[in-house]
């Protein structure tokens, strides 16, 4: 069946999979199509885990795909004279290729727990820096005013414009007013769904001054795509100055601010 | 490979023509296709009807497991959950219904026994008894539902007269109810009734109702007042379990004032969800029994009775879980 070229052609097509696959990943970073710049403390361990898994699965990928190619090439019925091997399996091989992946995966599972705990379980013992209340389709922010406590009359209210001081532990209290949203900071490797009825703590430490995106990553209705915010990481002095300015501005437009305040405060 | 001549199982290769296989169209019978009657090697000593019934019931188990699981999650995640008597659940009625269902499980077994013994008259009687017991169960359930409705407990919000807390919404609901024209007439009649023709309870009730009416129309009423109103309408706090029965809604059933039952709406949602789906299953069972009654219930139809019985036991079992979960805890 088939001529000698067709088997070679199809084998090579399957060889193209690992070749082009690896090439895609190799070339992408130079077009800036790669992990966005990481400006957080814990991001490093997430990224290195990503690279570790990329390496591991990369090896598995290359080996298995090359085997597919090689077997197709070598055992092409049109070109091989040898009869097919009559074999129903191998107990020893089954054991080997169960135990090796099992050990690898178990290692991976245990290896990553610490990072997970750092990002989602070991919450810093500080008062919330800011409360983020998601709603269709904006991020409402509430800073504790001078007294450092949320829910007092000197709270400062803002929309979509998050500022945090650099190199400090930040604790965000995440809530939602209406539907699910997701608080996604690509450059800080943070993503957390905001769930109505729940108060979810999110923490990070930004390590580089600059302005970055806040993306809503959970479908929340027609305006989901434009639920955009900005996070500004700045020095402590700049941050304090900015906060004071915001406070002054809020004082000037008190009634309006009060209305927002009442609404945001009502979110359970 | 093992390559030995295969011996067929003893002559039951045709078991699909047994009584359970009416789902199976017996094609080939004189259809002129002339194809062979195939013989099989069944993996389990069960008829097709019984096997598929067991498999169907296992899907049903998962269905109710999902509902019960949701109930448990919602209940234990809720900030408040009413006690059974807050929501007018009566343990004796529930226990009675449990008893009715268990009896019906017994009668269907008796029907099966009779059919197997080819006593078709007797089988019919037991089947009828099962049908009646099932109907009785539904009747009691309907009574219970109507009791809930009359207390304003509905599974859906627009008609529900249950409030989670004595807040402004509650206050305005009470005011709206008291302001209805028919209600104004009723209240006037009550006011005009001479002391003598009222029981002691009704007399204090009328007094308390008057207080509420002034309180609720007072423009600067306090949240505290609303809590008092709520407690008068339906006392929850007054412990000892006998709180129920002394509320205004009980003294004057026509009042039907909105009540405050923390967790009451979620309770109602889950209660109607669980018992509603159970009741639908009961109805299906009753339809099956009615159909069976049209047949001659003897050994030939005993397979159908057995399957109906399996289903009915399952419906019974679900209730055995529901009863303690809803009525006792």
């Amino acid at each position, binding site marked *: 069946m088939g001529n000698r070229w067709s088997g070679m052609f199809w084998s090579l097509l399957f060889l193209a999979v690992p070749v082009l696959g690896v090439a895609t990943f190799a070339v992408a970073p130079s077009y800036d199509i790669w992990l966005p710049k990481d400006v957080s403390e814990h991001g490093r361990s997430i990224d290195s885990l990503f690279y570790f898994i990329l390496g591991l699965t990369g090896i598995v990928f290359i080996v298995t795909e090359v085997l597919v190619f090689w*077997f197709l090439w070598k055992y092409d019925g049109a070109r091989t004279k040898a009869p097919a091997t009559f074999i*129903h399996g191998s107990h020893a091989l089954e054991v080997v290729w169960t135990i090796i992946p099992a050990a690898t995966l178990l290692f991976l599972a245990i290896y990553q727990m610490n990072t997970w705990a750092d990002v989602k379980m070991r919450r810093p013992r500080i008062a919330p820096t800011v409360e983020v209340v998601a709603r269709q389709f904006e991020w409402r922010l509430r800073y504790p005013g001078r007294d450092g406590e949320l829910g007092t009359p000197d709270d400062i209210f803002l929309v979509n414009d998050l500022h945090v001081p650099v190199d400090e532990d930040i604790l965000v209290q995440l809530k939602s007013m209406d539907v699910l949203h997701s608080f*996604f900071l690509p*450059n800080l490797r943070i993503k957390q769904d905001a769930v109505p009825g729940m108060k979810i703590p999110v923490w990070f430490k930004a390590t580089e001054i600059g302005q970055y995106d806040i993306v809503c990553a959970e479908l929340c209705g027609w305006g989901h795509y434009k639920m955009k915010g900005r996070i500004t990481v700045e020095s402590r002095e700049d941050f304090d100055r900015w906060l004071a300015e915001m406070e002054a501005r809020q004082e000037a437009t008190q009634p309006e601010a009060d209305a927002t305040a009442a609404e945001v405060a009502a*979110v359970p | 490979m093992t390559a030995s001549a295969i011996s067929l199982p003893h002559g039951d290769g045709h078991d699909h023509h047994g009584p359970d296989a009416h789902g199976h169209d017996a094609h080939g019978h004189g259809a002129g296709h002339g*194809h062979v009657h195939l013989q099989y090697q069944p993996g389990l000593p069960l008829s097709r009807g019984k096997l598929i019934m067991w498999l169907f019931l296992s899907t049903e188990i998962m269905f109710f497991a999902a509902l019960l699981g949701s109930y448990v999650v919602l209940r234990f995640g809720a900030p408040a959950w009413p006690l059974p008597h807050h929501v007018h659940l009566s343990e004796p009625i529930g226990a009675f219904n449990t008893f009715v269902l268990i009896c019906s499980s017994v009668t269907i077994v008796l029907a099966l026994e009779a059919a197997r013994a080819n006593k078709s008259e007797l089988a019919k009687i037991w089947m009828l008894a099962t049908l009646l017991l099932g109907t009785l169960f539904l009747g009691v359930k309907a009574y219970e539902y109507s009791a809930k409705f009359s207390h304003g407990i509905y599974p859906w919000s627009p008609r529900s007269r249950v409030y989670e807390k004595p807040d402004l919404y509650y206050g305005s609901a009470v005011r709206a109810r008291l302001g209805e024209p028919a209600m104004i007439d009723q209240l006037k009649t009550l006011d005009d009734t001479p002391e003598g023709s009222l029981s002691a309870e009704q007399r204090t009730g009328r007094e308390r109702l008057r207080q509420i009416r002034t309180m609720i129309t007072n423009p600067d009423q306090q949240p505290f007042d609303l809590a008092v109103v709520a407690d008068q309408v339906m006392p929850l706090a007054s412990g000892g379990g006998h709180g129920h029965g002394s509320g205004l809604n009980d003294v004057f059933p026509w009042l039907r004032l909105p009540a405050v039952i923390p967790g009451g709406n979620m309770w109602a*949602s889950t209660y109607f969800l669980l018992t509603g789906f159970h009741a639908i299953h009961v109805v299906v069972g009753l339809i099956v029994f009615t159909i069976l009654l049209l047949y001659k219930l003897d050994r030939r139809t005993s397979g159908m009775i057995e399957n109906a019985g399996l289903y009915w036991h399952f419906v019974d079992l679900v209730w055995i879980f529901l009863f303690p979960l809803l009525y006792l805890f």
Partner: protein
Amino acid sequence: MSTVQAPHAPSSPAVVTPRTGQSLSTFLSTYVFSKDHKVIGLQFLFSTLLWFLIGGLLALAVRWQIAWPWSQVPVLGKLFAQEGGQMSPEFYTMLFTMHATVMIFLVIIPILAGAFGNFLIPLMIGADDMAFPTLNMLSYWFMWPAFIAFGASFFVEGGAASSGWTSYPPLTTNVASSPGSGWGQTLWLLGLTLVGVSSMLGSVNYMTTIILMRAPGMTMFRLPMTIWAMFITAILQAFALPVLTAAGFMQLTDRLLGTGFFTPEGNVVNNLATSTGGGHPLLWQHLFWFYSHPAVYIMILPAMGMVSDILTTFARKPLFGYRPMVYSIAGIAGLGFIVWGHHMFISGMNPALGITFMVSTMMIALPSAVKTFNWLGTLWGGRIQFTTAMLFAVSFVSMFIIGGLSGIFMAATPVDIFIHDTYFIVAHFHYVLFAGTAMGVWAGIYYWFPKMFGRLMNETWGKVHFFLTFLFLNGTFFTMHILGAVGFPRRLADAYHYETFHHLQPLNAFMTWCAIGMVATQIIFAVNFVWSMFYGPVAGRNPWNANTLEWTAPSPPGHGNFDFQPVVHRGPYEFSVPGCEKDHLMQTDPPDAHSAALAAAH
């Protein structure tokens, strides 16, 4: 007690359907309301292929918007979109919601279980039909109200469901939260329930058939992998689906009656306080994924089974590790019930629970690894025939590896923080679902087409179809991985206004061109399919020299399937038995066929 010998299958079909005097009613009962599993299987096949086309066109509309946001949509634009032929953001959400719904509930699940399951189960186990043919017919006809519900939802006020195929509340339960969510979401829930009823009827029937109606000698461990996969898939369906049905009802009452199962207390939507509350949005997610994770295996196990059969046939070699293959399917199914939480790592679920789900998810890669290596073992040392079916089957293996390995990234909880809800996920599931299952389905179609219609499909055009599909699918979906690495979020009508993503438009345009090519390629397939039905070369009973029982029946098999009593003497994969003159021993070949050959050789 009698000993039955299988006669050698006669070469001409012994069962002929009467052609004379066909009245409308026989036409109806033969082709429309037929209880014959083969007709029902083909009905499923045709309906699902049609929906496949619709799902593919919806995908193109999705891709159009991603590549050239807010630009005029060709063709479709006139039909649906807003002023100037440009689509609105809510229409975009509708598109991908219905794309996924159609693909999953109206294409992949029914094509695997409904079309292939129905057609193959009785044939491959040696039965004349399903255990309950009427039930079987109903399971097809329950699809129709679902087709209508999903189809009609595009034309109702407010449009189709637009909350993603995952349908997360409160967006779905609170009508005020998405302005269009009138009947669309309700019809979606109804459709889902009906598809569920259909699957349920099918699955209990399949299980009963496989348990009770195997031919003499067909022990469980002589079943072809396709049947094992169908069997275990049916178990998965039966145990997972009722949970979704229950959850669907709860969402329905939340929408229609105002119960609050999935709505939390004090919800304010569009400045309106909702009157109900006390529920949990996450409860839905748990119930939904309790079904939908097992469902992803429902959507791949049958394809794995079919691919195993096809690989052995064209490698002319026994399946490597039959029992491990069976146990690994069972393992995937079993573990599949305890990993659902990996869709919820970021959902606000307790992070400690996340760890347990992470570990179980890692473990589910194990049985998949066993399967992959055994497929490779099957290719090793074979005499490979590059038929179209074989090419699709090999590409299933090759592509499943990619889709599976990307699953490992997401199973790693910390990495999932970054890639959750990005195109990395979209890449993952299109590799397993499209590059995996759909390729497996094509393999199955090319392989069993002769059994279905008695004619072969054109191989040359089949290979052109394969080549182009393979090329374009990788062009479309492989690139999604690197898109995901940037964090490019899914379900966004337009992401280029974000600084992080604004430079990704050219890449997306490339992917869209590939997707257009991929859908266009299917014209080749459609033409080949329809043409071959009528004009393809006549196939004969066993065109591939395969071993399993369906190849002993006439092509196409008549009513009742077999014109002799099949008796099984060996496993399904006895290819290239040493000393045997032909390179395959069918399951029904008499037990001494092999030793007779040996004796003759001496």
